């Protein structure tokens, strides 16, 4: 079908209540999308304020104390409210059941509960910001977080609650993927995005409780003075770091694995060619999920942990890097002898390949023990994780957002403006963060409100880069919203893709498919079929 269908999930029911109490995974995905985009906007404004303040060593617009709150909130909001739920809970929720030919996820009520818990957790975060906010860094390191005067308890309680939303989504996806696949859709006929979500869900369910326990212990210490981490009360602050990273390192893979899943889809669809090394990509996701639990100590090479522990964590860190490298080669090989087109989702895919590679290679610097000693807690680390999280996950998220936008709303955005926006974001991103590799290696410590004059030129350049990137995001916001109301109809399958979600209408009907789909070909069989493109 080429136009917009008469009945679809967006007009199946009307009124605000039909949205807030919906059991439709697509609507819940859209609700999540609004939530995370709001968080991304707020976190992004904080990022711009940070870069503005760092334009010069002198005070630009805020005091040290305010700056410490701003960088803490930038990190906490981007990690807990944006990037963790971004791909799984928003895009994954919308697409996963369609990709396996199901009407919905296994537990629609649990799915709705997950979104409401996300809102509740966010409310605690907002309450914390309104009642003094926090200045501990998103990592809440003790004993600073035990004695800091900010509103630490409400923020950590918020993050604790958000953890449940993440666990619910993960649990739901595991059961859905096991039990609800279409007839004939065996594990190795699943789209790789589903494999990515599956590996992510395992980490969400197994690792998130550890964060919850850690934060509850921190709250107990602050509220009831039970000494666990604060040496003044007989606790051990390094224990907090172990607990915290036992969750937060696997959490890095909660962030990147679904992004890798999206890239696997996009590189195949826009090369119009079979994915190279399907099984290698699928299994490397599981390998990453497994090893990710065993590398937390690489955040603590200079924390005073034993040299033996440091040595083992370094070794395991290098091992977890290998599957990611294999994936990059597989994606490149997929382009070989393809028929490549360069719409916005593909441009984000190529951006991902370059930026994620830089992020991965600089991870090798940080995994090497001696090199980490010098680079630890400098801007090199800041640059590294922005290349992985923003250059990796966010680029994949934006690629997926542009790829499924016509499926979600039934309408296309303006392709030219999309290309202009990618260019701004890619150039601005590299201006902002590549300079920070040099800053860090030159010794510039992170979380500094002010700095020595020698670092000013690079800091200045980085701040200008953030404005270029900001322009790109403003353009994107405008054309994406415009597309919802005024875009031309996309049709069922604007990209000529083979996965199930493109066989239904755009937007899909309430129950996804009018006729339950049956698997007749694999998700990447571009060597057998050339699907018709509707846009």
């Amino acid at each position, binding site marked *: 079908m080429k136009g917009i269908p008469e009945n679809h999930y967006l007009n199946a029911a009307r009124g605000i209540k039909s949205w807030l109490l919906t059991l439709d995974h697509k609507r819940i995905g859209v609700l999540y999308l609004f939530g995370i985009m709001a968080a991304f906007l707020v976190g992004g404004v904080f990022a711009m304020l940070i870069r503005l303040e760092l334009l010069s060593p002198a005070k630009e617009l805020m005091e*040290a104390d305010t700056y*410490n709150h701003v960088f803490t909130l930038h990190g906490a909001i981007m990690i807990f409210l944006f990037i963790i739920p971004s791909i799984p809970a928003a895009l994954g929720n919308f697409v996963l059941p369609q990709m396996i030919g199901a009407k919905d996820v296994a537990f629609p009520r649990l799915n709705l509960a997950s979104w409401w818990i996300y809102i509740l957790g966010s409310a605690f975060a907002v309450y914390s910001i309104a009642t003094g906010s926090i*200045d*501990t860094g998103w990592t809440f*390191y003790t*004993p*600073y977080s035990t*004695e*800091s005067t900010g509103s630490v308890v409400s923020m950590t309680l918020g993050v604790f609650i958000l953890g449940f939303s993440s666990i619910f989504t993960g649990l739901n996806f595991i059961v859905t993927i096991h039990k609800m696949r279409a007839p004939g859709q065996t594990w190795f006929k699943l789209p790789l995005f589903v494999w990515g979500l599956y590996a992510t869900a395992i980490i969400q369910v197994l690792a998130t409780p550890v964060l919850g326990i850690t934060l509850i212990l921190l709250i107990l210490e602050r509220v009831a003075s039970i000494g666990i981490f604060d040496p003044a009360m007989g606790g051990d*602050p390094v224990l907090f770091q172990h607990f915290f990273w036992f969750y937060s390192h696997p959490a890095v893979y909660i962030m990147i694995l679904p992004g890798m899943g999206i890239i696997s889809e996009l590189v195949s669809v826009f090369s119009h060619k*079979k994915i*190279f*090394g399907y*099984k*290698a990509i699928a299994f490397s996701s599981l390998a990453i999920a497994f090893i990710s639990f065993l590398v937390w100590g690489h955040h603590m090479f*200079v*924390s005073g942990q034993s*040299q033996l522990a*440091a*040595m083992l964590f*370094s070794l395991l860190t*290098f091992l977890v890097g*290998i599957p990611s490298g*294999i994936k990059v*080669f*597989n994606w*490149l*090989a997929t*382009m*070989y*002898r*393809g*028929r*490549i087109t360069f719409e916005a989702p593909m441009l984000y895919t*190529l951006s991902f390949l*370059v930026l994620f*590679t*830089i992020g991965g*290679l600089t991870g090798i*610097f940080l*995994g*090497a*023990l*001696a*090199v*980490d*000693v*010098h680079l*630890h*807690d400098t801007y090199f680390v800041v640059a590294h994780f922005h290349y992985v999280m923003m250059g990796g996950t966010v680029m994949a998220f934006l690629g997926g957002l542009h790829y499924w936008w016509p499926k979600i709303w039934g309408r296309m955005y303006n392709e030219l403006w999309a290309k202009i926006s990618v260019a701004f974001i890619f150039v601005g991103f590299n201006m902002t963060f590549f300079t920070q590799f040099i800053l860090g*290696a*030159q*010794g510039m*410590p992170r*979380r*500094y409100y002010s700095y020595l004059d020698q670092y000013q030129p690079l800091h200045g350049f980085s701040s200008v880069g953030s404005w270029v990137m900001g322009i790109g995001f403003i353009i994107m916001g405008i054309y994406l919203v415009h597309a919802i109301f005024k875009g031309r109809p996309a049709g069922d399958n604007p990209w000529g893709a083979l996965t199930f979600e493109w066989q239904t209408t755009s937007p899909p009907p309430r129950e996804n498919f009018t006729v339950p789909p049956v698997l007749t070909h694999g998700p990447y069989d*571009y*060597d*057998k*079929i050339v699907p018709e493109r509707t846009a």
Partner: protein
Amino acid sequence: MDTTGSLFLPPGSSTISSEFDALFYFLVYASIVFLGIVVFSIVLFSLRYRKRGVEETPTPGISHSTKLEITWSIVPTILVMIVFVWGFRIYMKMNVVPRDAMEIKVTGQKWFWTFDYPEGANTLNELVVPAGKPVKLLMSSRDVIHSFFVPDFRIKMDVLPNRYTVTWFEAPEIGEHNLFCTEFCGKGHSEMIGRVRVVSEREYAEWLETSGAGGEELPPDQYGAALFVAKACNTCHSVEGKRLVGPALNGVFGKPVMLTGGGEATVDENYVRESILEPQASIVAGYEPVMPTYQGILKDRQIDALIAYIKSLK
């Protein structure tokens, strides 16, 4: 010895730095090669295999290549294992303190460093060491976690409140180097910057003679001015009216101030002395009770000099 630094790294000024730099630049060049392969493939495939014309035919069904996949798994694995062993060996050198090292006690606190020398002297924010002699740093914190980082030496170690940590260095040449705190510790974190001054053995001996003080022969207010910087008062108190972590000190002497919890005090000799030795006793309204005590760090004569200096500030 590299004294100018390079694009990425500051000048290397310790016995370990050249080994570190070799591994670092090996990683830089290896990364450039790998990134080059990725970018080259993207550009080549994008140009060569871009869609041309309107024909829509199936593309080749290349599903995998065992040989290729084994190659691109094994080669990077071997390379990272080399980097792992290389990095571990230098790391052990960074951690094993030579037997003949002299030991200096380092204390981190919000927001300055104190150094206690084996001969009995102490300094704040300035670590003075002799060139060509290994120096062991035995470190602990009085409050939250700090981290001791000298970029020119390529060393860093967290400084903890509940246990001692150790690092060491040997600087072969005389010179001055930045010292940063790299573990976030609050308002004054970015002001917690010190210097490491590497001097000749003879100069070090002379410096110890004066027990690191110097300036006692000056008039009290000038001596106080020197102490104001040497004892890191300037980290939190400005003398030109700017609000830092603590109140500015110019023009306050002899004037009344409002205190936290009501009440008023006049800034006189006794008030300043109390603020230095028992800083939590009377806090100026609008400021947090975060100043550490200087009990045991300053002698009476030095407190007198600081009072004279504050008196002189307009």
